[in-house]
């Protein structure tokens, strides 16, 4: 049945190790004619005890006897059993058993060896003492029996009870705890007979059976102290050589007959004791021994005078296995109790063999004999014939690999009844077979063959926090989220991080950063005021304001010009002659630093620079370096060389002064310095710098270093921050945040994996960065999409997977056309594809044209049972294969033609981790027509034609198609069909996406860059319930903002831009007051006048009106916005816009 023919020829490149058999069914061999007993199942390692058989003389004709213990070491490939101990005994044995009496689970006590001797004696040995080599190994001895003790058995329920049988129908029950006086199971049976077998029932502890050579078996009930049933077929030919109870069924037993005329095994059921239930007639001659496996009741060993060792199923009579033996009879056979596949057989040719019934090679079975033959005869010409024996002429000892088939039926112990395996998505696949119980109904039987798929969710907190984060991203409620995190922070550092993150979503992020660093502007103002008050009196602020407002127009009044001979006089003379340089020198010499600087300003840039240098050279106060940096604008120097204890100050300075193009780098630099510092406290502070810098990748690196990221919650801690920061960067900055660094990619895919493992496939997809070519992310996305059960329609046979498909041949081996890929080097094709392809994907994904035609409701993902992502989350899945195909290169030359292009997870809408979709940006207030659209919103669609873009172009040398096959990055559509305005040179470069003309502006959330302040204004924060500005005053706002925009586009130096930005922001105070209608009519009318003068570009008129308003109105009413309005007017005047 089981592959009688050897089909191994079909295997290519079969690699047999020459000379080494694959495995042998014969495991070990001991050259003894001996009785044998395996150590009990509890014992580890496995021992085999042997005692010289009383019936046999061994080859030496010696009459000595010994008791030996061998260890079964299966890791030793040799046939030799490892001998542990030998005890020279004065007895020879008829029976040897090893009971687990007093054995503990640790195996410290190795039980007791019980031997049946020749002269009615039973001897108890301590195997541990034998192994230890002790002289005194006998525990007890009793010679109460008559004649040889051939039958012994240990009660498996009470291991201190041993039954023995001998001549004269003698049966004794021994209590090993009280060995002196045995009990009897009842009156001796008549006529007196030899007891050849004895066995305790395997299910009922007080039932014992005995049998004798005459063929009768008697069953004893020890509670009744009498025989309860006698079993006999009345043939008079059943000479019982073996008796065994059924391991599972209490009423069944087998009897084996050694009579050659009736070489059978009878299976009896005591409930029907008139005739045998079944008769096994598999042996040709008398049976000498049987053994019933405790591990599988369908396995019964028997050996007979036909020299066969058979394994039969006593329940069916079928022979399952025949051990290949030599021609010798075996007189004893035993299953190893511990290793159910192992058995031992003792044969009359003086050998105990240990076999496996799991099959294997028969090679080596005879090798040892052959070797021995050779050594005994001394040479290969034993008979002196001159013709050496060819060593390979022994039958069956051919070069052929002889296979011994395993049992026809797999033994019970290899049939796995239960299993549970995890699969992707936190699913657990389980099955468990119901244990067969005969009386069970059919319904129960059917139940067995079900497989259950369960969802395992173990990280409740992680999931709920992740869901919260999704919710926040969806609702854009960043500020309150950050605030909650701040409130819940356990550590000061955590609190700081969240405070820093929160600032990104608030007005005046720069100022708030400074506050967080301990520089509260108002506090500082007060401090300064109070410091000045000591000199100038209480009204200094008002005075200042007025002084400032009157500064540019020449101050009135007269002054005295002295031309005396002192320093004053000299300076005066120098000034009068226009010799600024000398005047400055004089001032410096006189230590009149302020005068020197003031004069130097008048003397021009060069002189000013010289003077500053001279000043710094002369002045050595503690803050000189700071002032130097402020004046020289050399912040790199501060960041690079400041004492790291002062990192806050350095960061504050950078926040205040750094130019947009250097801000991020400076924050990074500071962060890097902190990180490389030995002080772990400072290391973590680097995170704050990276937050300011908007450097997600470095934040991840720094955080990972500082925190244990291995458990889901600490990863959640990190991801919360990363997501919020990315969001902030996207919202506030022009920087291209699409780039996902290696580390971030790793963390995000780790995070998505965790979510997936909790069954949240949709959430995992939502969090997976969409715009990266990191292989692990591309692969994970594909896996997630398909796990959702959404293969691309019509793609059944060539599913889009991010792998180079390896081809397997159909049924028969042989060359198959087109299968040229070598699977041994898959990486060669595999990774490059992943590397190249998603770059294209990234580009095509950015094209928003597909979006309008696929509203979220149309996404099939929504129909999925498990948590469809909220609107605004990525719908991956191949929901839009047509678009995907259209956007792809159709047959890129570098690709295997059978390979589906590569992963194309299309999305039907933007994900939160993409730049925000245009049509979903909440508008806080109505924008004027010419309002500059917030830069971060445009950034994803219109990448700056800067370094980044050129990098990307370089990355796709072999894929020029995507760019040209794109719909040329069409103009994105706003919901109202309102096109973008205010983009510089919007249509000046045909064929180029509008944004390509946008200058590349590096940015960071806190960077004081060009449009930042405006962006902050337009941020979708939660404060959107402002009243509208009354229509009649709207003109003020549009006019002022228009003016600022005009100034911004003409202004060249960053400082001016910054001033204008700030002004734009501060004017919000004015608008607020307009909304609240709290301004006095005078001021309102004055503002309208200014607006009119702006319309006519008469800025000096505007300034005059301004001065008038300031001087006539209540300071507190106007101080919030009038000074900046003046700045704007002044700038406009200067720039001539």
């Amino acid at each position, binding site marked *: 049945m089981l592959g009688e023919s050897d089909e191994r020829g079909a295997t290519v490149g079969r690699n047999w190790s020459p000379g080494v058999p694959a495995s042998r069914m014969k495991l070990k061999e001991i050259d003894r004619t001996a009785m044998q007993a395996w150590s009990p199942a509890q014992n580890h390692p496995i021992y085999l005890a042997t005692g010289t058989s009383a019936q046999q003389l061994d080859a030496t004709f010696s009459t000595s006897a010994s008791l030996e213990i061998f260890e079964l070491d299966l890791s030793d490939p040799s046939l030799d059993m490892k001998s542990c101990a030998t005890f020279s005994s004065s007895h020879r044995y008829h029976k040897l058993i090893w009971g687990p009496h007093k054995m503990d689970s640790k195996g410290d006590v190795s039980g007791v060896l019980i031997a049946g001797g020749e002269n009615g004696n039973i001897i108890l040995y301590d195997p541990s003492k034998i192994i230890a080599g002790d002289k005194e190994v006998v525990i007890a001895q009793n010679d109460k029996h008559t004649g040889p003790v051939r039958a012994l058995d240990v009660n498996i329920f009470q291991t201190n009870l041993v039954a023995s049988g001998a001549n004269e129908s003698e049966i004794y029950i021994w209590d090993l705890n009280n060995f002196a006086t045995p009990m009897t199971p009842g009156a001796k049976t008549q006529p007196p007979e030899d007891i050849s077998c004895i066995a305790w029932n395997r299910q009922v502890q007080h039932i014992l059976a005995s049998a004798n050579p005459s063929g009768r078996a008697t069953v004893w009930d020890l509670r009744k102290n009498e025989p309860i049933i006698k079993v006999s077929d009345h043939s008079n030919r059943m000479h019982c050589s073996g008796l065994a109870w059924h391991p599972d069924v209490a009423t069944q037993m087998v009897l084996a007959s050694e009579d050659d005329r009736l070489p059978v095994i009878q299976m009896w059921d005591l409930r029907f004791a008139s005739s045998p239930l079944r008769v096994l007639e598999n042996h040709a001659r008398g049976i000498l021994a049987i053994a019933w496996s405790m591990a599988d009741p369908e396995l019964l060993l028997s050996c007979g005078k036909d020299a066969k060792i058979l394994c039969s199923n006593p329940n069916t009579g079928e022979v399952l296995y025949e051990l290949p033996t030599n021609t010798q009879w075996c007189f004893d056979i035993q299953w190893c109790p511990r290793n159910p596949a192992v058995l031992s057989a003792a044969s009359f040719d003086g050998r105990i063999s240990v076999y496996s019934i799991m099959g*294997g090679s028969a090679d080596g079975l005879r090798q040892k004999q052959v070797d021995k033959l050779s050594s005994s005869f001394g040479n290969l010409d034993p008979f002196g014939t001159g013709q050496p024996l060819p060593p390979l002429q022994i039958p069956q000892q051919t070069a052929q690999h002889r296979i011994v088939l395993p049992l026809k039926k797999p033994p019970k112990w290899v049939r796995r009844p239960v299993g549970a395996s995890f699969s*992707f998505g936190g699913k*657990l696949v389980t099955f468990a077979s119901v244990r067969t119980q005969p009386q069970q109904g059919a319904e129960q039987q059917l139940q067995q063959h079900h497989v259950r798929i369960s969802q395992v969710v173990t990280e409740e907190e992680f999931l709920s926090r992740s869901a919260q984060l999704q919710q926040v991203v969806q609702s854009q409620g960043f500020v309150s989220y950050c605030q909650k995190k701040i409130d819940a922070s356990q550590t000061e550092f955590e609190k700081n991080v969240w405070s820093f993150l929160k600032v990104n979503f608030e007005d005046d992020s720069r100022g708030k950063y400074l506050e967080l660093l301990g520089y509260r502007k108002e506090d500082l103002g007060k401090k300064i005021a109070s410091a000045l008050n000591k000199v100038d009196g209480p009204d200094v602020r008002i005075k200042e304001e007025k002084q400032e407002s009157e500064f540019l127009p020449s101050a009135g009044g007269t002054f005295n010009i002295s031309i005396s001979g002192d320093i004053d006089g000299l300076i005066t003379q120098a000034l009068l002659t226009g010799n600024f340089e000398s005047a400055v020198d004089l001032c410096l010499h006189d230590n009149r630093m302020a005068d020197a600087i003031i004069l130097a300003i008048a003397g021009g840039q060069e002189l000013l620079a010289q003077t500053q240098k001279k000043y710094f050279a002369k002045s050595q106060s503690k803050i000189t370096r700071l002032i130097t940096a402020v004046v020289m604008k050399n912040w790199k120097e501060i960041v690079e060389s400041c004492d790291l204890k002062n990192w806050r100050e350095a960061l504050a300075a950078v926040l205040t002064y750094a130019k947009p193009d250097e801000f991020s780098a400076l924050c990074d630099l500071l962060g890097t310095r902190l990180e490389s510092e030995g002080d772990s406290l400072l290391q973590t502070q680097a995170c704050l710098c990276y937050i300011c810098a908007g450097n997600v990748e470095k934040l991840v690196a720094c955080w990972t270093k500082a925190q244990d990221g291995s458990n889901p919650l600490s990863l959640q801690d990190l991801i919360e921050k990363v997501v919020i920061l990315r969001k902030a960067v996207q919202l506030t900055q022009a920087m291209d945040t699409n780039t996902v660094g290696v580390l971030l990619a790793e963390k995000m895919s780790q995070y998505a994996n965790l979510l997936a*493992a909790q069954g949240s496939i949709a959430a995992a997809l939502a969090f997976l960065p969409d715009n990266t070519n990191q292989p692990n992310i591309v692969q994970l996305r594909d896996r997630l999409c398909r796990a959702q059960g959404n293969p691309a329609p019509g793609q059944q046979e060539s599913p889009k997977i991010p792998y180079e498909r390896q081809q397997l041949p159909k049924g028969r081996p042989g060359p198959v056309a087109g299968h040229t890929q070598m699977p041994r080097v898959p990486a060669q094709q595999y990774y490059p594809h992943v590397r190249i392809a998603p770059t294209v994907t990234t580009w095509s994904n950015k094209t928003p044209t597909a979006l309008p035609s696929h509203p979220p409701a149309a996404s099939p993902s929504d129909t999925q049972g498990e948590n469809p992502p909220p609107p605004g989350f990525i719908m991956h899945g191949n929901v839009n294969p047509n678009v995907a195909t259209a956007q792809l290169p159709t047959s890129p030359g570098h690709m295997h033609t059978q390979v589906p292009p590569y992963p194309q997870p299309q999305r039907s809408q933007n994900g939160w981790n993409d730049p925000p979709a245009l049509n979903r940006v909440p508008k806080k207030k109505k924008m004027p027509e010419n309002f500059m659209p917030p830069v971060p919103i445009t950034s994803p669609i219109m990448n700056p034609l800067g370094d980044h873009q050129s990098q990307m172009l370089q990355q796709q040398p072999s894929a020029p198609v995507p760019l040209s096959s794109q719909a040329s990055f069409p103009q994105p559509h706003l919901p109202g069909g309102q096109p973008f305005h205010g983009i510089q040179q919007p249509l000046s470069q045909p064929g180029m996406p509008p944004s390509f003309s946008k200058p590349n502006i590096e940015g960071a959330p806190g960077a004081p860059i060009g449009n930042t302040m405006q962006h902050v204004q337009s941020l979708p924060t939660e404060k959107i319930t402002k009243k509208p500005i009354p229509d009649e005053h709207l003109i003020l706002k549009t006019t002022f903002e228009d003016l600022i925009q005009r100034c911004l586009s003409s202004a060249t130096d960053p400082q001016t831009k910054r001033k204008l930005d700030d002004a734009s922001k501060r004017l919000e105070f004015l608008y607020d007051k307009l909304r609240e209608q709290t301004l006095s009519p005078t001021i309102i009318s004055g503002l309208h006048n200014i607006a009119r003068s702006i319309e006519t570009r008469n800025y000096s008129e505007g300034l005059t009106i301004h001065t008038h308003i300031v001087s006539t109105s209540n300071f507190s009413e106007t101080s919030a916005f009038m000074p900046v309005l003046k700045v704007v007017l002044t700038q406009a005047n200067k720039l001539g816009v």
Partner: protein
Amino acid sequence: MGEMVSVINTVDTSHEDMIHDAQMDYYGTRLATCSSDRSVKIFDVRNGGQILIADLRGHEGPVWQVAWAHPMYGNVLASCSYDRKVIIWKEENGTWEKTHEHTGHDSSVNSVCWAPHDYGLILACGSSDGAISLLTYTGLGQWEVKKINNAHTIGCNAVSWAPAVVPGSLIDQPSGQKPNYIKKFASGGCDNLIKLWKEEEDGQWKEEQKLEAHSDWVRDVAWAPSIGLPTSTIASCSQDGRVFIWTCDDASGNAWSPKLLHKFNDVVWHVSWSITANILAVSGGDNKVTLWKESVDGQWVCISDVNKGQGSVSTSVTEGQQNEQ
């Protein structure tokens, strides 16, 4: 505990005898089962369904295990049987058929496991003949066989590959150059041992480690998926009722230490790691499945009894709720 594990699909396999293995594919959308009825079946179980895709006949004895290859090689399934054969099945044009039959073992083949896909298509097979064979697809329908003889006396019960360890970052690999992987797998057998095998530079497999702790047959070994940490982890279970977690922190990969997860009262048949390697599912001879997780202090705690006793009792409530929906 109850809500931690909820049955979402009960597949009636219609197998006519005991099921011995059930494995989902890479995506968790297809279920392969095998049985003592000598058949292998594949079901589409997407969206809680159970559509029989294939009923594969070819084995002549009980089928012990099934293993899905990585999808980059197509839809490929390996099965091993008491009939001493390993069969590799493949879906071609929607039809499943036998693509290769490996008959190199002399006894029951108890375990099959595909190597990490990065290595190519390599299958390890453990047999009761004590040997482990490694089948490598060399293209053109050819499979190269390497055999480790006498790996476990009386038999090998389980094989499990180590995750692909990439020296350095994959991105840094020179393009077109095969990363220098170190291939390793673990095996467990009737000699009570777990052995770790490593491919030498000459392509030969060498025994690298013997892990000794079990006092009876090792029924299963499972190398934990890599989660980017330097620690390697292996779970093993045995006839002796013990489940051990073996960990190795050192770079040489030779210092393994066992930690006893639990001692059960019956044989433990199977251990399976979650994809994120933080949960171990343990299937015992009392037909009980338990889930275990390592606590913060490094102790393994049982977090759930998936099904008590007969496999269907404790989950029936959840199942009823599912059906109502």
